[in-house]
């Protein structure tokens, strides 16, 4: 198979490092959050990224989204590099890549109705009449099941509804890539399922490419075609989700997978990490 080089995202040797405080003399030591990550994200696929807290998966997501400039390495987004953060071109590129964050209540303006906030995203990139914009906004809200709630303020919605509104705001621009950074982690399990099913549904309908960052392995297994495992800033392995679950190649992946809670613990294989002793 010849890989489609023009479409999708190509990350080459991405490094993100933050200075470790300031030094009066000499350069500060750099802490590497992401350390030499390369992978390809194909158009139309869903890539899951798993890893523990501090493994650099969120930083990786921010670099892939182009809202953070890598320390070194390059991101090619549908064949193009990202423009410098904040530039005019960068703002125009925003419509092609959208983010959904962990805490929906923190990323919406508490004083604007969700209709107005979704419409603002649309009007930022398209010059439309008020009526058309309202119509398109209404469509987008209906798509995520909030058709009748556009007039509400963020605090009048539940966490799950608010996350739907954020997804509507992201998808109204018809982005090529949707990056979900712990998008369901703050929601309770039944609501998580709703959001996941919504994403699966929208993926089919809108032919979305999704990068799904989560520490929840079972969610990632459910949603992603391929998945990558991060640990200490490095991408340990990446591959077909099912294959990776069946035959993890890396020792850390094996330990991570064995830590997934199962329905009937007594019957399960012995865990690699003995949690009882740690407690």
């Amino acid at each position, binding site marked *: 198979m010849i890989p489609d080089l023009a479409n999708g995202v190509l990350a080459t040797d991405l490094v993100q490092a933050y200075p470790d405080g300031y030094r009066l003399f000499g350069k500060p030591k750099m802490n590497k959050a992401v350390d030499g990550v390369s992978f390809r994200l194909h158009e139309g696929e869903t890539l899951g990224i798993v890893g523990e807290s501090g493994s650099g998966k969120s930083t990786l997501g921010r670099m892939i989204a182009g809202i953070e400039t890598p320390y070194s390495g390059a991101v090619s987004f549908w064949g193009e590099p990202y423009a410098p953060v904040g530039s005019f071109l960068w703002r125009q590129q*925003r419509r092609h890549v959208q*983010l959904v964050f962990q805490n929906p209540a923190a990323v919406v303006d508490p004083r604007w109705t969700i209709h107005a906030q979704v419409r*603002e*995203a649309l009007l930022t990139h398209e010059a439309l009449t008020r009526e058309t914009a309202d119509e398109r906004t209404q469509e987008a809200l209906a798509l995520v099941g909030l058709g009748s709630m556009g007039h509400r303020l963020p605090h009048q919605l539940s966490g799950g509804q608010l996350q739907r509104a954020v997804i509507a705001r992201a998808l109204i621009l018809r982005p090529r890539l949707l990056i979900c950074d712990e998008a369901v982690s703050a929601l309770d399990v039944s609501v998580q399922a709703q959001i996941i099913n919504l994403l699966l549904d929208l993926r089919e309908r809108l032919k979305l490419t999704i990068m799904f960052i989560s520490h929840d392995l079972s969610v990632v297994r459910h949603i992603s075609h391929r998945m990558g495992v991060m640990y200490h800033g490095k991408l340990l392995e990446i591959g077909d989700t099912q294959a990776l679950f069946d035959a993890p190649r890396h020792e850390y992946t094996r330990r991570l997978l064995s830590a997934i809670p199962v329905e009937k613990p007594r019957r399960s294989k012995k865990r690699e990490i003995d949690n009882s002793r740690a407690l």
Partner: protein
Amino acid sequence: MTSVDFSEGLRERRRYRFLTRIWKSRPSLVIGLCIFWLVFVVFTALFAQAIAPFGYAEQSLLERLNPPAFMGGSSKYWLGSDNLGRDVLSRVLYAMRTSILIAVMATIIGATVGTVLGIVAAHFRGWVDDVIMVMVDFQASMPFLIVALAVLAFFGNNFVLLVILIGLFGWDGYARIARGLVLSTNGQGYAHAIRTLGVHPAKVYWRHVVPNMMGVILVQVTLNFPEIILLETSLSFLGLGVQPPATSLGLLLGEGRNYLATAWWIGVPAGVVIFLTTLSVSLLGDWIRDKLDPNLQDKSE
């Protein structure tokens, strides 16, 4: 022995609870009075000309140092007359106009300058942030009255300069608040998220950040406003503020000082107005802050 300690603590707590209950049962009355007084002050400031029985500079040398009407003075001068035979009531009314005008304009200047600089500092970070924050620290550590006196003495006194100077008092508070709020919302909050939609930062600030900051800024205004009235009072009292024959509350207080022992009615009314106005604004500010703070809101219920 332990039981004594216990009851002691209990009584202490009960007394405290008693006081808080009084405070809780009264605020509507206290706040009502504050609002009433402030409305009255604004009304007087706007219509001083129509209300005042005399002009502020109208002298009558034969009617000098008349005591107030309720102390057996002439009914012509409700609050008595001063050393030049000017009606104290009229002068207080006009003084309220001057002082409130200065305080309102200065507060607007200070709030605007401070908020804008705070946003600029938080947006650009780096050396811009450093420079603005050094200016904030400088402002906070300098005795402002002395700086103001120096500037007024050096450039000469005029009304516009006075207003601008008083306006710059307290901008550091606004700057610090605005900077903190913008930093937090730029880091993880909605401003950051909305910017990733491709919205221009200026629009994000104007449409989202500033309207959301208004509540906190408003509280800072109510804390800053009394200080500004007092600053104007101090400057006028020292002779570098409003110049006679125009009058302000501070000037009245300064003039009345010379006659405090013989004709207290010249200075005291201005003092009472200053006291009531600053107290009202402070109490109202506290009340608004409590109303806006969801944590405090929950505790009181």
